[in-house]
């Protein structure tokens, strides 16, 4: 596979590889929508006292998910609040009450989780408000039911961290290997797959080794660890799917059913906690990193915590960053306002200095072909963008604009510093009848039945 080697900068957050409990925030704003379209129905009212882990919103049809309080306190507002990705979405604001900030009290450990069948597991996922945390973010129960109905063969656990700075998944493996493996096993049973494959990258060999040793101990033959070369964007779900199942990348991007399904590593851990400890989903491991953070670390962050509070948990900033991002530097989202709440799909919060993210002067395209050489989906970004500049959108489509997975390699390697991603998005936006829209960057969970010829 084609890809690029990035300077990974992982060491700053892996020196202290445990995951710290962040300072409890004074206020959280929990978004009630995952995709910006479907919204969960709030079941609390203004001024109501909520406990940590209490359900504050019910799933309201497919695409929405139950939401749980990540902070004990009083509901101070329910309304539209800013969201990093979708402008403004409905959210519940909870303010902590007093100094007592109790953690989650485990109800009861479920001992015999092996006896649960696929439907029962999906119900647990549904009630615990579990979310598939990789791209694209979606309710886990829906995805598991889809996969069980589609009779998938393999569950792929995406432990690849190909983006720089982001190490939250890696430290999750180092600190909780058994939980990850059990979560994987639960997902495998939930989807009815025959085997599960955990995919790591070559710079995560220590994690792979820990997992291998635990698998050896557990004697689980149906669990495998695969190590891929350290290239960006190896961890992209569409590429993993095309590597381990039959249909090619174009079909996968178009959303055809394949015989594997990708789940994010963080999802596995949440699944374990939800099924075994009966803990609803309200927090996740997040990397707070970047050169501007005083003590870059992985922390347990509650959903809805503001970026400001997350940075405070890591002893604040060394200096004013140029850009603050939710997610990695290659696909993340820049947030202008640091009161923006943490969303379930966010793997990291980065505060990057000017030296790293500086936008350079744009030069004319010299057709050097670096973008073609580095494009993992094998399309021609140079031709697409040159056509897009001339507004020749159908020509751009002929060169494969719709097979773009949005990894950003072309823009990274471009010596002319052209805005490749903007131009490609313009093509997707302007081409009538396109099966993809720029908003749904990786819209391949919407399963369509492929023609028989495609599924081999």
């Amino acid at each position, binding site marked *: 596979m084609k890809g690029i080697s*990035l300077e990974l900068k992982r060491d700053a957050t892996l020196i202290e590889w445990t995951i710290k409990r962040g300072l409890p925030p004074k206020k959280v704003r929990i978004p009630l929508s995952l995709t910006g379209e479907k919204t969960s129905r709030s079941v609390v009212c203004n001024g109501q006292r909520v406990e940590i882990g209490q359900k504050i919103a019910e799933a309201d049809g497919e695409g929405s998910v139950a939401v749980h309080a990540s902070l004990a306190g009083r509901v101070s507002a329910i309304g539209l609040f*800013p969201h*990093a*990705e*979708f*402008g403004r979405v409905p959210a519940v604001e909870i303010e902590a009450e007093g100094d007592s900030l109790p953690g989650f009290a485990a109800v009861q450990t479920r001992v015999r989780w092996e006896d649960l069948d696929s439907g029962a597991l999906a119900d647990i996922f549904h009630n615990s408000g579990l979310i598939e945390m990789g791209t694209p973010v979606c309710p886990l129960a829906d995805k598991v039911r889809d996969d069980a109905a589609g009779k998938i063969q393999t569950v792929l656990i995406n432990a690849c961290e190909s983006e*720089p700075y982001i190490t939250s998944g890696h430290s999750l493996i180092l600190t909780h290997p058994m939980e990850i493996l059990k979560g994987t096993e639960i997902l495998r049973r939930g989807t009815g797959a025959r085997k599960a494959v955990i995919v790591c990258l070559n710079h995560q060999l220590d994690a792979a080794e820990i997992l291998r040793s635990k698998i050896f101990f557990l004697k689980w033959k149906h669990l495998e660890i695969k190590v891929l070369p350290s290239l960006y964007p190896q961890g992209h779900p569409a590429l993993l799917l095309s590597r381990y199942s039959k249909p*090619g990348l*174009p*079909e996968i991007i*178009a959303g055809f059913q394949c015989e594997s399904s990708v789940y994010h590593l963080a999802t596995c851990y949440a699944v374990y906690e939800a099924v075994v400890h009966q803990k609803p989903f309200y927090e996740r491991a997040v990397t707070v990193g970047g050169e501007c953070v005083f003590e870059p670390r992985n922390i347990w962050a509650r959903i809805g915590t503001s970026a400001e509070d997350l940075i405070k948990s890591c002893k604040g900033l060394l200096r004013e960053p140029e*850009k603050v*991002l939710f997610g990695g*530097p*290659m*696909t*993340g*989202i*820049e*947030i*202008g*306002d640091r*009161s923006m709440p943490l969303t379930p799909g966010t793997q990291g919060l980065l505060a*990057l200095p000017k030296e*790293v*993210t500086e936008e*350079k002067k744009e*030069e*004319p*395209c*010299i*057709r*050097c*072909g*670096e973008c*073609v*050489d580095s*494009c993992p*989906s*094998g*399309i*021609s970004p*140079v*031709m697409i963008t040159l056509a897009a500049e001339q507004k020749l959108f159908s020509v751009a489509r*002929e060169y*494969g604009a*719709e*097979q773009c997975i949005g990894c*950003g390699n072309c*823009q*990274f*390697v*471009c*010596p*002319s*510093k052209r*805005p490749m*991603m*903007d131009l490609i998005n313009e093509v997707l936006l302007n081409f009538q009848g396109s*099966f993809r829209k720029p908003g749904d960057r990786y819209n391949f969970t919407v399963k369509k039945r492929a023609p028989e010829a495609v599924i081999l």
Partner: protein
Amino acid sequence: MGRVKHKPPYLSSSTSVPQRFWISAAALAPVWLASFFLFGWQPLFLMLAAWAGGFAAEYAAKLVFGGGVQVANGSTAFFATLLALMLPLTVPLWIACVGGFSAVFLGKEIFGGLGKYPWHPVLIGLLLLEAAFPILMHQIPEVPEAPGPRSFLLDPQAGTLGSASFLAVAAGAGVLIFKKLIRWEVPVLFFCVLWGLNVFRGAPVWQESLRQAGIMIPFWILTDPVTSPTTRAGNRIYAVAAAGWTVLIGTFFPAVFAAKVSVLVMNAATPWIDHYFRPSAERHLA
């Protein structure tokens, strides 16, 4: 409300267009030093004259077409240096100046500047000079008889500054390949095909191949990113076809002239190669 700006990636590689051109120009340093070693100060004067012509063309283009002056991106300096090194030693300085001007103005700026020209500007400049001043351009310089190991470096028959030393050209080309500014297959395939065709023709293989290639052409002109195809496969076809044309045209015309014309022909064929050998043709979805 917080600003929502959706513009990843936020990182970019450290390469840049000026860097590419300045390194390409710097890779010509061994060739220039070798010619300085052989011929004295004249190559330097030729180069300065070509630079003067090139920069004058840039400012003239600014006056005629408007827009900014593209001097900082290094392409003009690179083209002028390359042009000077492909001239015979005996030409007067004004020839270099005219060559530099016509290469940059008629070869590059008239098409819209960097990234837009369909044919390599240096070839345009050189062929214009050859057409306009054929007698001046075809004088073979007197190369001093070199004793000992120095003679190994020399090709007294070469006729131009740059092709006087194989070793210097190889050193410069090594820099280009090491820095990944050119795709190594292009010169390699070009030479392989020339070699093969010469074996087939029964010509003296090594001398003939090197002479036909004009030595600098496969490294600095054939590999120009703007005028060559964007894909790796396309580049291979381009190099092979250019070598084929070189041999074909070379049977009727002087060898180096044939190499130049065949590169022009393949420059013109580049859009077709890009069209028919696009990277993803496989399995289009309705």
